[in-house]
């Protein structure tokens, strides 16, 4: 065995010059290929270090802050709402949170549904309409839910209704974009079939496009409902209803055991919603959750 490998080695070494000539790229020094990634990595790390310095990170600050965080974590455990009245109170605002997420998502979907068709290239074949509606969706999407919440608080006053409207607004942009993309990705054949049997354009959309996009749209709406449950938990921080209001109050009044109890409730609610909605998604479109 060793005899064979020794001979193999000799034959390779004898022809090395020729092999190197035939495959020059394989014998290029390794550092040359790694030079660009190395430069990029140095730049990224440099910017990171600059960021740490510019944003005021100091070792002492991290140490004192970290030790204080450790103390607070100790105080937080075990989570304790103190009285049953508080539990009921928090459950009520949790229901409010879920209501905000549900109605906000539904409202956004209902508003975005017709506009999704208008913004789809294959339904309304007008370049100007297409570009304008897309830019509108992008602009609305670019404004965060919390900013929308602040705007709506000015309009309908403090409370959960402002939260519903904020989520509806923010997701209207996202849904409009997603729906119109889903509609553009549909197969043209069913539409042609309906038109060839004398169906009106409206009938073509109803019987040709709608059955194709409805499952996609439903699953997207359910997915956004999950993510909005998370957003709705923090929307109360700016005063737009839900459990976030109590959370920020408890943090301000340093009631750490209450804080951990509220966070625990939020975690349970979010996982429950995730579970239910992924089951629903599976049932509706028959696709396993990603």
């Amino acid at each position, binding site marked *: 065995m060793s005899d064979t490998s020794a001979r193999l080695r000799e034959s390779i070494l004898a022809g090395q010059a020729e092999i190197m000539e035939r495959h020059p790229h394989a014998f290029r020094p390794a550092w040359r290929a790694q030079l660009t990634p190395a430069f990029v990595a140095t730049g990224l790390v440099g910017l990171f270090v600059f960021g740490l310095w510019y944003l005021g990170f100091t070792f002492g600050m991290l140490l004192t802050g970290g030790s204080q965080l450790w103390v607070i974590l100790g105080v937080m455990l075990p989570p304790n709402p103190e009285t049953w009245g508080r539990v009921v109170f928090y459950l009520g605002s949790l229901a409010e949170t879920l209501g905000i997420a549900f109605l906000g998502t539904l409202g956004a979907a209902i508003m975005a549904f017709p506009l999704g068709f208008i913004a789809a290239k294959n339904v309304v074949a007008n370049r100007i309409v297409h570009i304008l509606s897309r830019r509108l969706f992008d602009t609305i999407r670019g404004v965060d839910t919390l900013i929308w919440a602040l705007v709506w608080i000015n309009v309908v006053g403090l409370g959960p209704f402002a939260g519903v409207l904020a989520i509806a607004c923010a997701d209207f942009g996202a849904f409009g974009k997603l729906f119109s993309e889903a509609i553009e990705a549909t197969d043209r054949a069913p539409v042609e079939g309906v038109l060839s049997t004398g169906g009106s354009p409206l009938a073509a959309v109803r019987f040709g496009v709608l059955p194709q996009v409805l499952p996609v749209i439903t699953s997207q709406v359910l997915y956004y409902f999950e993510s909005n449950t998370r*957003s709705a938990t923090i929307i109360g921080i700016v005063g737009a209803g839900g459990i976030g209001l109590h959370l920020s109050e408890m943090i301000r009044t340093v009631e750490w055991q209450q804080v951990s109890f509220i966070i625990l409730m939020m975690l349970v609610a979010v996982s429950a919603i995730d579970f239910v909605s992924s089951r629903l998604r599976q049932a509706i479109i028959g696709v396993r959750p990603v």
Partner: protein
Amino acid sequence: MLVARTISPIATAEIAELVAGYARALSARRMRSLQGLAVLVVCIVLAGWAAEVRPLTLYDKIGNFTNYIDATFKLESGDRVWTDPVEWFWGLGKWLKLLGETLLIAYVGTIAGAAIGFLFCFPACSNLMKTKWVCFVTRRALEFNRTVPELVFALIFVYTFGLGPVPGVLAIAIHTIGAMGKLFAEVVENIDMKPVEGIAAAGGTWIQQIRFAVLPQVQTNFLSYALLRFEINVRGAAVMGFVGAGGIGDTLIVSIRKFYYSDVSAIIVLLILTVMLIDYGTEKLRHRLIGSERQR
């Protein structure tokens, strides 16, 4: 039935049966849809009651909304903002500096979070980590990190680390650890295990298996996910200031609360432009990354 008779009178009974069957199927489907609709309506009513929805208030006050949007596009003198851009963007220098700080918060948070998420994704993978409980504990920890909203972490960190960008960065980093750790772990679980077995057979340690067998397969995906996360974190960093955790959010919330109308629109326009620019840039970068992967 007219159609059936003209084609063949013998099959009438058969066709009548088929028609009845079709009607039954249709009514069953209608029934199911109606039941679904009823459940939906009940949910809407319950949610509407819980969230104190007042359609009449909305109807009364919808004018306030358009007035508000209208007011944000007016200068103090009453003129439209675009008639005097210099006056509209009077604080451009200050705002750009704050926007830069926002981007830097997102950047530092993304890098730190992605780096730590990178370290924790390998023990969270069932195909690389054979000790079951390590896998379970890492997964639950990552889940906790991404389920608690960033702003909640920010609120707590503002209390312990003080006001300023530091708690913002930490909050974003912690959330990024959870999100990235999960996505990275999913990528790693889908790799081809043959190179790993090869390195293990040649006597490579666990670290060497990851470095030479796993990393080459996943690095493009990892970078692409990190870029996507940066995009999300820029949006997150923009509102960190709402709870005092640095960036432009602080100035924005002050101008909303104090009704500095034209400032609100100016800052939001700057924010939208920045977000669009970052989205565009990261998309280009990701396409190049995926393109370079295909070439190999």
